[in-house]
């Protein structure tokens, strides 16, 4: 039912150039799943499920060897830790293609990487490491947008120096004995990078969301959350104890309706007005490759006096002419976003997250954030990596490396997306998003695509249910500034080859190849079917 609704919401490429809020063309496409493909996909799951039941039956009767870890004899009469159906999917579907995930890396996760070779003699239940290393695999999987995952260069050198001097641990929290001068410097730098008053850094991106949203909202507050928000935002919202309502992905009508209804009707049962309304959105959605319609969200937020929490985990560094994220991409003012959140894991090649905004917000978080009080503060080599890479992006290191990387990423993204579309693949998301989901649909193709690509020395991420709706399994490419044109061309050739092999070129939209049309309003047409 949900898939159907989503399908309805996505009709062809939708353009918003007419909207006065946008300073640039906003081209996002989610091509509808072809009917035949959808039917076949459901059939695929049907067959897998039937076989799953059959094999469970055989395992039960000891006809098939059972590899599943068993409960201890002493605890057999305890209430089972897992419900039987809970692991049906893992046992019978995931296990078949488990080799496509958790592939161990043996080098820096840069533009290319080395993978530890593994093999399985028991249908993926256990892996053996052969001791060999698969060298020079093109990395289309890591979130290394600006190519700062490096083991040489300014960042690594700076981090190395700090490691020797300070060690890696902190062994205390920010509020106790773990507040180093360098942390404060990092926070000042983040604030100036984003163009806001103040910022605070945390040791883990996931926890930045899940441990700070509860400080911002509570009982009697309403959280409006995009349906495709990351698990950390969902968890944070849940921990806050607020009422949570979900709007359709990037759908402003849906958001506005919820806002109106919320203010008009107030809280359920008591009908008291809401204390405050917090909108949770992400800059780039990592599974859809879509960019938030930020100008519209800000207009709505202003109209309805709601607060906006923007998670820029994927967009910071990756969007905007100066890498300042989705706010800069749309040419907006950072002051219009109440809470700017982001992570250092992706574009900065480090770890952790930040929250930035007005000084009173950050002061409040300093005293009330779960993270500042209970969690160990950020390790210094990581802090150093962030400071160095951020200064590079800002051009404060006296070079243009940062600037050119941002440009390179934008060019790579547009090029890669255009080529894929021309080849006839269905790709989702915004034209400018470096996250490029390519639809595979059928469950068997998830594993096949991952394996065939690795055979040809290309590492890709494949995703299926439950990370995506059941029929929308996909491969996801993350474009990096570190990719050279040759690498991308090789990758594209291989993708095309594997795409022919697995019949993945589903798209029915005719795209004229290499039509480097300049942007001009008449070129684009509203395609609303």
């Amino acid at each position, binding site marked *: 039912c949900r898939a159907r609704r989503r399908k309805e919401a996505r009709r062809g490429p939708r353009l918003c150039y007419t909207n006065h809020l946008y300073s640039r063309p906003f081209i996002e496409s989610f091509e509808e799943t072809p009917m035949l493909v959808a039917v076949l996909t459901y059939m695929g799951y049907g067959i897998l499920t039937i076989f799953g039941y059959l094999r469970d039956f055989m395992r039960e009767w000891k006809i098939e060897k059972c590899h599943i*870890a068993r409960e*201890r004899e*002493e605890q057999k009469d*305890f*209430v089972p830790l897992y419900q039987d159906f809970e692991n049906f999917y893992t046992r019978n579907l995931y296990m078949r293609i488990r080799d496509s995930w*958790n592939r*161990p*890396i*043996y*080098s820096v*996760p840069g533009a290319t990487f080395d993978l530890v070779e593994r093999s399985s003699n028991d249908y993926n239940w256990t892996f053996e490491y052969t001791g060999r290393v698969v060298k020079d695999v093109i*990395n289309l*999987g*890591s979130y290394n947008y600006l190519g700062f*995952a490096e083991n040489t260069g300014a960042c690594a050198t700076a981090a*190395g120096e700090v*490691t*020797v001097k300070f*060690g*890696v*641990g902190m*062994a*205390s*929290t*920010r509020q*106790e*004995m773990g*507040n*180093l*001068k360098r942390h404060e410097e990092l926070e000042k730098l983040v604030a100036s990078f984003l163009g806001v008053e103040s910022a605070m850094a945390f*040791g*883990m991106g*996931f926890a930045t969301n899940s*441990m700070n949203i509860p400080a911002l909202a509570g009982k009697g507050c309403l959280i409006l959350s995009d349906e495709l928000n*990351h698990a950390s935002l969902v*968890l944070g919202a*849940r*921990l806050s104890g607020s009422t949570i309502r979900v709007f359709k992905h990037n759908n402003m009508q849906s958001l506005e309706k919820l806002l109106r209804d919320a*203010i008009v009707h107030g809280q359920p049962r008591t009908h008291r*007005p809401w204390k*405050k*309304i*917090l909108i949770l959105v992400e800059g780039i959605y990592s599974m859809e490759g879509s960019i938030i319609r930020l100008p519209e969200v800000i207009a709505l937020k202003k109209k309805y*006096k709601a*607060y906006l929490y923007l998670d820029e985990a994927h967009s910071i560094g990756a969007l905007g002419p100066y890498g300042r994220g989705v706010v800069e991409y749309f040419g907006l003012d950072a002051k219009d976003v109440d809470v700017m959140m982001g992570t*250092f894991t992706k574009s900065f*090649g480090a770890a952790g997250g930040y929250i930035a905004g007005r000084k*009173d917000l950050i002061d*409040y978080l*300093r*005293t009330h954030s*779960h993270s*500042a*009080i*209970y969690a*160990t503060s950020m*390790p*210094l*080599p*990581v802090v150093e990596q962030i400071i160095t890479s951020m200064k590079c992006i800002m051009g404060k290191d006296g070079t243009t490396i940062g600037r050119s990387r941002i440009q390179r990423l934008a060019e790579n993204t547009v090029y890669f997306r255009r080529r894929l579309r021309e080849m006839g693949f269905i790709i989702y998301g915004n034209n400018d998003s470096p996250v490029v989901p390519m639809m595979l649909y059928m469950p068997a193709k998830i594993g096949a695509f991952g394996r065939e690509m690795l055979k040809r020395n290309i590492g890709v991420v494949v995703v299926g249910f439950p990370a995506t709706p059941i029929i929308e399994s996909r491969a996801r490419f993350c474009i990096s500034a570190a990719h050279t044109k040759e690498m991308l061309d090789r990758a594209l050739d291989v993708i095309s080859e594997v795409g022919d092999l697995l019949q993945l070129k589903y798209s029915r939209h005719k795209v004229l190849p290499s039509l480097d049309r300049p942007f001009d309003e008449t070129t684009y047409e509203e395609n609303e079917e």
Partner: protein
Amino acid sequence: MYFHYCGIPILIFFCERVKIYRRNNAISHNKLLFQCFYNRCSAPAYHLILEGILILWIIRLLFSKTYKLQERSDLTEKEKEELIEEWQPEPLVPLVSKDHPSLSYDVVTGPPSHRIIVNGKECINFASFNFLGLLDSERVKLKALSSLKKYGVGTCGPRGFYGTFDVHLELEERLAKFMRTEEAIIYSYGFATIASAIPAYSKRGDIVFVDEAACFSIQKGLQASRSFVKYFKHNDMEDLERLLKEQEIEDQKNPRKARVIRRFIVVEGLYINAADICPLPELVKLKYKYKVRIFLEESMSFGVLGEHGRGVTEHFGVNIDDIDLISANMENALASIGGFCCGRSFVIDHQRLSGQGYCFSASLPPMLASAAIEALNIMEEDPGNNIYIHKNKCILPSSLIYGGFCRTPGLKTVGEPLTPALHLQLENSTGSRTNDLKLLRAIVDYSLDRQIALTLARYLDKEERFLPPPSIRVVVTVEQTQEEMEKAAQCIREAAVKILK
């Protein structure tokens, strides 16, 4: 409401029928239907007309729309706009007063090691959880550096999507081997470890029995699990048994439901808030008696208790397989970052797809994993000896300092002699938490001036389920010499005498 209005005509209708019936009272029951028809024919014309009108009236009532007594309350667009215009939200965050005690963090300038520079003064560190002094270890630093030169800093992905490095696998294997369990799983953040592990198993409807002194990350894990939480008094096994018995009685009432409700006991090995050890052997007895699983959080006890530093299980000689899940962070004794869970594969492996902090978060930077591996190497090097005990020449360091503090007037020492992090609380509270904290802060400042770095134990007052009393937390590490400990004890005594009067 409907029948209210229908009632009158129906009543009239039946009166008419009865009249006719009485007139022909000789008719038997089985002929009634025929008689009705016959009667109608023989009845006077005005009767027929009246009945006809009544029947039509009833049909009309049956098919007409119901109507409400009140006017419809739907708001017009204009009214809605007015409401929207009128609504004023609370500010996103309340204003924090400038002199809020936790706004002015102590600033550390040098490395946060044994000798630490706090607010510009060089001190001996009695505040960081660097129990084994591994934060200062050159070997750990060099290992981290060489790892950095190979892998860079960040992992740029979660474990599933090219965020697994060979060092992660090595660290997991090493931890499992060290703890003598089947499997271990690492998280990139200590706080997220138990907070993710609990909701991976305990779901809505399940029951969790928790010690009142449980730390904040356990509380958050419980909240995320949406399970039914029952708190028992701190380390009070009778109270726990009482709750378990209550549950048993409850189960007997509804055995069908009882068969699917999972039950867990969540305890800390060594409580960070209370500085004492949980009675694990009794817990294990209760576990088998009432068929409850035990989750044990060992962030404070890992590397500290037990002959080899394996924690509370080793300390009590409890079979580690009797504990369903052990979690600990690598931020204290191992002086790295992150946390791990270990136990049997049957339990632990589930987290690889269900542990939120594991699946959805970027993995631990490889250099930090390497540092943890090297720290484990150091811990294992001297077989048969826990360096926490060994390095201090077999005198439990904390028992020494414990003795020192026990003689402090005005302050009471909370915690067992074995624990590495003690709490000093006020003997007589002033009655207000703020003032208590101010007094304790004065002691901390006094000590800072005399080169002893201490810290207040910080809590989120409103968020804690059972807020511990204000205290100074004193951490004892292997690096502190006897003289330094004596100096610290002396210094705190002086401060207490001076400030508490």
